[in-house]
């Protein structure tokens, strides 16, 4: 996994709540055997609709997604995160995330940042004013646990220390867990 320490990139606004993983990547794209090839199908059905936020050229090339509460609810499909990552997103900022989606992000180097609703609204409004000529850049700093922009926005966020460490160092979680091999073997001995 690619480490994530600090990322600066242009932001795209998706002002919707309860965005489910069926929307992020519809089922017809779950039929493969690989983790790749999904970026082009991100939000497949919505992209066919005029007026969909990510069809706006001002959002193209964005690497930070700013969206509404309960993002990533529904199906556990990790394909949703693979699609977001391949499309170019490195961080997602929202008031809240669905649990499985949050965990999936952390295992793919995509950082889900939870800010207060009012803070997300501020970033959302600024991102919505972006144009092709004038992008809106945001900085997500996992080392300092802060989100900032060039217009004076600077807010801290919290992140569970265990997952943060894995992200910061880009560690393979299986390798990390296998360091506990003696404990696992002991558990198995006590619970045959």
């Amino acid at each position, binding site marked *: 996994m690619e480490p994530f320490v600090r990322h600066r990139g242009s932001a795209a606004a998706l002002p919707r709540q309860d965005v489910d993983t069926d929307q992020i990547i519809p089922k017809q794209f779950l039929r493969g055997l690989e983790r790749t090839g999904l970026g082009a199908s991100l939000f497949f059905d919505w992209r066919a609709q005029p007026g969909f936020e990510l069809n706006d050229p001002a959002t193209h090339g964005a690497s930070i997604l700013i969206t509404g509460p309960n993002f990533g609810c529904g199906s556990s499909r990790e394909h949703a995160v693979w699609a977001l990552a391949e499309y170019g997103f490195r961080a997602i900022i929202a008031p809240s995330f669905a649990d499985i989606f949050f965990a999936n992000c952390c295992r793919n180097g995509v950082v889900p940042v939870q800010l207060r609703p009012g803070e997300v609204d501020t970033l959302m409004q600024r991102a919505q004013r972006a144009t092709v000529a004038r992008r809106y850049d945001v900085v997500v700093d996992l080392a300092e646990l802060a989100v900032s922009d060039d217009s004076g926005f600077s807010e801290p966020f919290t992140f569970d220390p265990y997952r943060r460490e894995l992200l910061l160092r880009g560690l393979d979680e299986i390798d990390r*867990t296998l360091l506990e091999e003696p404990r696992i073997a002991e558990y198995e001995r006590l619970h045959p």
Partner: protein
Amino acid sequence: MIASTAKTLFDRIWDAHVVQQLADDVALLYVDLHLVHEVTSPQAFAGLRAAGRSVRRPERTLATVDHNVPTGDRSLPVDDPVAVRQLDALGVNAREFGIELFDLASPNQGIVHVIAPELGATQPGMLIVCGDSHTSTHGAFGAFALGLGTSEVEHVLATQCLVLPKPGNLEAHFTGVRAPGVSAKDLILALIGRIGTAGAAGHVIEYTGDAIRTLSLEERMTVCNMSIEAGARAGLIAPDDTTFEYLRGRPRAPTGAAWDHALARWRGLRTDPGARYDTRVIIDAARVGPQVTWGTHPGMVADITGRVPNPADLATDHERRAAARALEYMGLTPGTPLAGIPIDRVFLGSCTNARIEDLRAAASVVRGLRVAPQVRAMVVPGSQRVKREAEREGLDQVFRDAGFEWRNAGCSMCLGMNADVLGAGERCAATSNRNFEGRQGRGGRTHLMSPTMAAAAAIAGQLVDVRAWRRAELA
């Protein structure tokens, strides 16, 4: 002051599975049963192969094919080459890593959350995982059962362990007695309507109260199944005699002295008096009527006697916009009575409501009647075992005589990965669990409800209150 040692059921199961505390609230937990299916596992096995790892406990791992399987004639080869590739991949992976697989030819094949319980593989007190969000179903046995992404599936295959921050604990207490015509599906939809699709985020729900105790084990599975639609990590119901009687004699349940030993252990799986939950919700089951969703997530739900809401009446701007978008997608006008909305399709199936009791309940509604001429209705049993049992009882003939298609087991039109999909604009009465945009097919419109409500809708050709409709039929 002495700290309370009273534990909730969830605390008890959690504590019994901690291998190692990794950080303040993050533990390494041992997994008792890992269920695998064809859609979320290929990348996990590929990861194992690439790293030269093996499956740590293949005998604690059970695989089947369900999401991407055809539900038509099983004597014919699968005619979808993309599906074949995924089905074959699971076959290869199961053989290479030594995992038991119930493939399309197996008499035990079916939806993963239907087959593990019916085999008795799901047992109280276990930690059960699967790369599928509806793993919460198994909580009906008093197991901590949760859905994972594919990276975590790979992690469990390699280590038999799961890294998890400890969720909070929410008690959903259902008092009172259900009215006739009201099902377990209505109870859980009513809860989701009350607390919202993120209402239990970060929490495990324990369902308690008289209205839960009196549910059959299969009804409890319906309730726990949809915990995820309230955002919960899992749902739990303390095991009792209903649970033990369900398990007794199942193929994978313990026998003899092992059964007695297990039973003694299982009886201790309960919440101590005085144990604290982080949150508590109380619902009076007697006041819950048959529920129908009107929008594009399961929290957009109302009593069948209600009307399509007016977005303008909702509290926040976010909610107003979401509801307006949902109504546009669903092709519904505010103020329209829910009863009377015409439908095109009926889907009786899914891990929520395709067990034998569900099929019996639906069959009792359609017996001797005909599906409305403009409606296409299908029954997709949750497993081949359920299908055989239904056929033994003659339920297949009841459905066929009424004009339903009688199909083979799989997830089918719950998520529409196979050929069973809605066309754009088609409106479906479904016993499944998600009414998301495009879930059952691009442009398809899903109304979630109980099996008897869906069965009645099939006959009436429109959404109906199964209680009033029954009376009208008898008159």
